[in-house]
């Protein structure tokens, strides 16, 4: 199952050469199976659960719905890119300390979604948080501790600014 085609993807600022790929492979598949970046998870294959959330040119998208070969000209950011310096981001830290992680399968996608939300809106209302995260399904937590993690990040960021 291969072709002679090859292309390059820019992921987390690094160019990756993709060769011998079948042209129908999703970005999620290529990230996970060809580029050694399994942080993005696949749970529904149809853009319903958000586990595979990545940023393409700054937009949060479900990588299972994107053909990898169609993302050649774009800047792709994955959960692995959040920790270039080895430390947790404030969102990741809050997910751990507030109990937002149980099985953890939805977690990378939710971490990306929360970063995206707070990058666009530094003081979201409760409803804005719920709406922004409603594309990411978590089956373990019932969302309560995830909301608590978001609240904590918002509070800490505000405290740091004041």
């Amino acid at each position, binding site marked *: *199952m291969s072709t002679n085609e090859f292309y390059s993807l820019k992921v987390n600022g690094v160019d990756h050469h993709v060769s011998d790929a*079948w042209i*129908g492979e999703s970005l999620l*598949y290529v990230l*996970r199976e060809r580029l050694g970046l*399994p*942080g*993005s*998870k*696949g*749970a*529904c*294959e*149809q853009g*319903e*659960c958000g*586990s595979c959330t990545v940023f393409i040119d700054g937009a949060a998208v479900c990588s299972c719905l994107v053909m990898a070969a169609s993302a050649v000209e774009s800047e792709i950011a*994955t*959960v*692995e890119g*959040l*920790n270039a310096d080895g430390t*947790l981001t404030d*969102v*990741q*830290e809050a*997910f*751990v*300390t507030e*109990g937002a*992680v*149980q*099985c*953890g*399968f*939805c*977690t*990378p996608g939710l*971490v990306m979604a929360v970063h995206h939300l707070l990058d666009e809106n530094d003081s979201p209302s409760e*409803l804005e*948080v*719920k*709406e922004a*995260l*409603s*594309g*990411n*399904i*978590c*089956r*373990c*937590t*019932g*969302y*309560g*501790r*995830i*909301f608590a993690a978001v609240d904590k990040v918002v509070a800490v960021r505000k405290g740091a600014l004041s």
Partner: protein
Amino acid sequence: MSSVKTKRDVLGTSSLRPDGGAKVKGDFAFTSDLHAENMLWGATLRSPHPHARIISIDTTAAWKIAGVECVVTADDVPGQLTYGLISSDQPVFAKDVVRYMGEPIAAVAADHPETCRRALAAITVVYEVLPVLFDPELAIGDDFEPIHPEGNLIRQQRIVHGDTSVVGDVIVEGHYVIGMQDQAFLGTESALALPDADGQGVEVFVATQWLHEDQKQMAACLNLPTERVRLVLGGVGGAFGAREDISLQVHTALLALRTSRPVKMQYGREESFFGHVHRHPATVWMRHHATNEGKIVKIEARFVFDGGAYASTSAAVLINGVTHTQGPYKCPVAVVDGYAVRTNNPPCGAMRGFGVVQACFAHEGQMDKLAAAVGTDPVSIRLMNAMETGDLLITGQPVESVAPVARLIRETNEIPLPPDLAMDANELELPGGSGITAERKHIKRGIGWGVSIKNIMYSEGFDDYSTARCTLSDGKVVLKFATSEVGQGFVTLAPQIARSVLGVTDAVCDTIDTQIGSAGSTSASRQTWMSGGAVDGACRLVRERLFEVVGAQHNIEPIRFAIEDDEIVDTAGTFRMSVIEASQGITISETFEHHHRPTEELDENGQGNCHVAFAFVAHRAVVDVDPELGLVKVVQIATAQDVGQVLNPLSVLGQIEGGIAQGLGLAVMEEIIVQEGRVRNPSFTDYLLPTALDAPVVVARMIEEYEQQAPLGAKGVGEPPCISVTPAIVAAIRDAIGKDIDRCPVRPQDICL
């Protein structure tokens, strides 16, 4: 007493998950993230028919596809041709007949998932379609030809208790229907099998709830000695009961052994709906007899659980259902008939709540009917009948567990109700949410109650023990067990136990695999009690030996020692020494098996001490309903849960909130639609799960009354949250619209038509 010098994550603290950092970074290795050199992909061919005879299977064309390395069918299974948790009645691959839509027929191994798909498409199976047994009632008796050599009735159980001639002053009756719910864990089934070089064994990384049970069933089917089937727990993306049964374990190992190459299998979401058992759909009839005041004097009931094509745990689910008929209420007399039947519907088995969900939906509907019939309210009727420690169940078993039912109801009732829905509420707060369909002026609010009792641990004489090893060396503890971590947090709890018992700070968990005795299943709310008991026992044995060593060194009777914070202290003298110092240069390792007290099987009248212990919970739901559109928004869930002792408040809260969301799903959203044996919605587009916008405000109280039977005083907390929240929400809907609704999930047409 010395003051606490360091803050250590002992029992009672909200110790954080040791795997949390890896999980938020995407570094945690779920089974589906695993790779091996020279690895092949596996895939499964499944039946498109719910019931058909297999005339022929032709794999010739599949073998010829470039990249295909192996095709296996029933003819290639080297050992036992069937498996199963209670009864070995499910074929590894269907051979002569398929009994449900999605039943495995063949498996392939190839170089790429797409090659696998093409290979599956190239296999030709000729079927003769057979009549479909889809009505569970037809499976009782001889109305339908047996669809399986073991017959259509999986199990029948009757309960007859007390003076059955009693008739109540007031009688209320109801028929209840519970739909088929899916566990819908996010991490679909996955396994990576690595064949041994000699071809006589295999190592399998798998996401499962019970490594040793998988190992036993796999070894039998693969015709290998048990020790040559070595299982390692791959990262598990949720479970909720769906990983108790074998799914892809035997197929993956068989392909690896046949190809002499590593093989990975991973189900997609659609396949996952066909690849694991679901919650039993059930019909329940109940008739409650009570005094004029509302005290229950007799309950009559009939349960039918649709087990689908294979038995799985249906026999145990049935027993849970019928033995929980009365709910958390006193009941002196009962006549109950229960049936678990085989049909050509999808196989059903374990899901969080395990048979009690179905019983609770019915008995809570009955309690509200009884309240209305005697002219009282939902809270008063429940308080009047509330079970207490020492009461007899309808099985004749005394409830020895702490049973603070009345307190749970009162404490839940004390939680403030949410404010009224504002006249200018944001549309996202209205039923229907972002669909922006409901209008504020049409919305009606309702309040409903649900209270439940749930057995914890396995029942009917089964000794579901757990094993753990504790090794102390240089002040550090390593804990070894086969307890499946599926997200619930045993890997957080186990080190907490070691820190409390041994006074250490540095405690870690070893690889979870079959290189130690069984831990039993991560199910039945049992691991805190059972594996917690095993870890506690192993740590205590190590502590005894440490005291002996230190006592010999310092000429002090070991019995005088105790652990105080991180030190060994002489309780009758002045000696004290840190555990770190005391354990320098020595290694002490002990293994402990924890067994719960024995239980009994039920007799033909359903009498016997079949359960180990019980946990209780109360839920009050507040909902907003649009009666014209049939839309529901769950506004608030108030709950008080009987937890025994809280060992980790954050973990307990996570179980409570998560369980409530799943119970909400069963109340108003989640149902696998099956028509004449065919699953119509096997995707997350069509099977709806609660999202962040559906999550209600949860106000939870943890009621701590130390459970003397439990090794750590703690009851399991996993299942109760999802059980009575479902009837509470449905009762709130009834309250809002004044209409009797007898099924869950409640669909728009149940409200507005």
